[in-house]
């Protein structure tokens, strides 16, 4: 009652009557220009996706050469040319299992079936269809029912390309190397060296270079012991071999071609294992026309593209910054003259410039190819950043803080780099980052067109893989697909990333999304 009376009389009380008031420290963290940009960049999903894809591609480029047994500079494996992708772990889930579709006529079907029969026949005494078909190296993964098309019987087969390679003749093997191979055979219980073929028993002399023909033929079909043509798979076990035998009938495993050099016939899969410390072939993206691993070449191509994009960006940015700053800061006649120079340079078509650099520097080996490409991109590339920086300098150079600095006696250089330049940085960097995908695209196009000719150098560009891929596009599409996908992904993700960066660094867009 008394309380109510008191409040009725004087309803107001001092809220902080006895409190001591001082400045409080902010609990929140300050949000600066770059912090703000980062916060808004994180919000843009497309930009983050772009950045993640770029990082994944970079990781691919870094780690593939590390984990692969092949290196990008090495000469390819001439016996595994134009092979489709094969990777043992992935082959169990039917990806990269080394198979391709082939339409086989009876002759092709029989000779492919014979390959695994030959593999199982280690010493020229046990040709058997059952063994061949049960072999782990059976060439066919699946075979369709035979069908007749324009008078010929065909089968649609899934053929394992690496098994199809089968036997290969090897020249110039010394006796020591031969014995080492024999030792390896017994240790690993895998046959490398197979009986030689007697050329005189072959039907046509051109068969002599094909190590997979170890049987006698008649008009292309294998023959049985009585000399009759075998035209059905069921009778293939009865075929007559063409092995080289001595007078007592034992098969020969080598022939002498030159002194101390042996000519042998190897099962290439096992020979590959012997040469690579037991590792089986592993070509995740297949091989190109020289037998080089596409996965590794792709990684080095990506490396070149990214390195080129970044180093061009840095050099262009540096030159452009100095040039643009001088133009913008001093203005007047200096600006006029410098602008005319860059105007004329900007009018030179890039294609003309690149071709001249190629003719003058790369084809005459005056400069390393990489340096020459960067040089070509830098020749006119700095004009863009210079122009943007000039505009920014015009905007800032008469601001009060600049005048204040000048009054305090700061030198021109100090005003330019310590006072004006940091304010222009965000805008300039983002605009310049957006030129990276353009550089990557142009480089791949020029090396594809051979306007920048990298064939003499040891570096790989996505464009050179594309050029190879296009030659074999209809028969071996596996070469052209990876570089196409990678370059498209790079372009898309760099554009997403760059646009996100540009929006993030533009403070006027703050809150526009909400």
């Amino acid at each position, binding site marked *: 009652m008394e309380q109510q009376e008191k409040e009725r009389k004087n309803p107001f009380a001092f809220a902080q009557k006895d409190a001591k008031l001082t400045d409080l420290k902010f609990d929140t963290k300050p949000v600066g220009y770059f912090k703000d940009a980062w916060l808004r960049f994180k919000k843009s999903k497309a930009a983050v996706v772009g950045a993640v894809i770029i990082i994944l591609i970079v990781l691919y480029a870094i780690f593939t050469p590390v984990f692969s047994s092949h290196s990008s500079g090495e000469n390819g494996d001439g016996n595994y040319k134009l092979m489709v992708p094969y990777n043992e772990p992935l082959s169990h889930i039917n990806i990269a299992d080394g198979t391709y579709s082939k339409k086989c006529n009876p002759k092709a079907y029989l000779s492919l079936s014979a390959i695994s029969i030959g593999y199982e026949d280690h010493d020229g005494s046990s040709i058997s269809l059952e063994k061949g078909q049960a072999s782990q190296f059976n060439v066919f993964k699946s075979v369709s029912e035979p069908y007749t098309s324009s008078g010929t019987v065909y089968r649609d087969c899934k053929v394992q390309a690496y098994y199809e390679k089968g036997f290969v003749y090897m020249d110039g093997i010394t006796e020591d190397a031969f014995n080492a191979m024999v030792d390896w055979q017994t240790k690993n219980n895998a046959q490398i060296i197979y009986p030689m073929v007697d050329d005189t028993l072959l039907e046509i002399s051109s068969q002599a270079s094909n190590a997979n023909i170890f049987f006698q033929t008649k008009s292309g079909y294998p023959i049985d012991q009585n000399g009759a043509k075998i035209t059905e798979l069921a009778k293939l076990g009865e075929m007559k071999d063409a092995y080289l035998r001595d007078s007592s009938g034992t098969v020969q495993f080598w022939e002498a071609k030159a002194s101390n050099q042996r000519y042998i016939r190897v099962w290439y899969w096992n020979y590959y294992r012997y040469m690579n410390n037991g590792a089986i072939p592993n070509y995740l993206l297949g091989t190109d026309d020289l037998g080089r691993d596409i996965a590794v070449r792709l990684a080095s191509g990506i490396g070149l593209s990214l390195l080129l994009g970044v180093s061009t960006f840095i050099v262009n940015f540096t030159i452009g910054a100095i040039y643009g700053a001088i133009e913008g800061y001093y203005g007047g006649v200096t600006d006029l003259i410098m602008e005319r120079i860059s*105007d*004329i340079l900007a*009018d*030179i*078509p890039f*294609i*003309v410039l690149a*071709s*001249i650099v*190629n*003719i*003058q520097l790369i084809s*005459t080996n005056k400069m390393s190819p990489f340096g020459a490409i960067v040089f070509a991109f830098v020749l006119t590339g700095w004009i863009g950043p210079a122009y943007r920086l000039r505009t920014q300098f015009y905007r800032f150079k008469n601001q009060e803080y600049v005048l204040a600095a000048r009054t305090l006696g700061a030198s021109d250089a100090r005003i330019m780099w310590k006072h004006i330049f940091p304010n222009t940085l965000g805008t300039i960097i983002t605009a310049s980052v957006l030129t990276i*995908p353009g550089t990557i*695209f142009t480089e*791949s*196009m020029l090396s*594809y*067109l*051979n*306007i920048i000719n990298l064939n003499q150098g040891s570096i790989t560009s996505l464009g050179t893989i*594309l050029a190879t*891929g*296009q030659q074999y*596009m*209809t028969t071996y*599409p596996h070469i*052209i697909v990876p570089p*196409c996908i990678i*370059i*498209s992904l790079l*372009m*898309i993700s*760099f*554009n*997403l990333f760059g646009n996100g960066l540009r929006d993030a660094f533009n403070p006027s867009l703050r809150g526009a999304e909400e």
Partner: protein
Amino acid sequence: MFKYILKRIGLLLMTFLIIMVICFVMIKSLPLTPPEGINESQVAVIKARWEALGYYQPVMIQLWRYFVNIITKWDWGTSWYIDYNLSAIRSLTNRIGPTMLINTYSLIFSVPLGIVLGIFAALKKNKWQDNVISVLIMVFVSVPSYVYAFLVQYFFCFKVQIWPLTASSLSDAGGSYFSWTMFHSLVPAILSLSFGTIAGLARFVRAELTESLTSEYMLLARAKGLTNTQATVRHALNNAMVPILPSILADFIDIIGGSLVIEQIFSIPGVGYLFIKAINMKDYDVYMVCNGFYVFIGLAASILIDLSYGFIDPRIRMGEK
């Protein structure tokens, strides 16, 4: 206006001259090497020809003679390897036809489509149709043109075989660039050129139209009683077209350079094809003519684009201080 055009043309000629001189000096400073794979007597013939043409004289004298020949006789040199003994300028003009043809077809096809898509996206802004179109635009603008070319070539020309793998030659097409056979064989190239152009144009139209749709004169137009369609067609579209038309002109110029790779993929005997052949075969007179062509196109384009602003929008006066 007239004075401004004259000034621009004068500047064009000067820039053209400077660039050509640089190119010429660069080419002439290379060591002279006869092509590989020919026998000694042929090398002797080539060396005698070089002697007769004055290739061993100082570069400055050659340069002077080169420009005097161009100005007095319109003689740009001779093609010695690509088209034997044909004048280089003739070699170029023979190939401008196919290049212009595919570019024109591609523009006829892609400009209406690009504009319609852009308008549609702008009118449906922030609805699902706009989102779908925007994502597609993003993808199609980014993916390089040669990737489309490979896709088109593989699926339509090789797998389905509705079009031939490469362009027909002039004689196969009945001696005319305008025959049906020719057009049919050029379709894949035209398609590959168009994807990027359509996407780029659609993006530009969408951005411009969105801006003019939110302008205040649109509010006025609605307030004075125009229907939505009337206001959009007569006011927004009209104004949006001011920057769009010069950009179409720029597209046309861009495409001439961009078709280099498409011409190579589909073996179209155009200027780009000639240019690359000239570099690979070291046919430097032809190479210089091609260079001149590209430089001139680029310079002329920038003048045309600047002037076109004045014609399209009467508010813009050219060359005013």
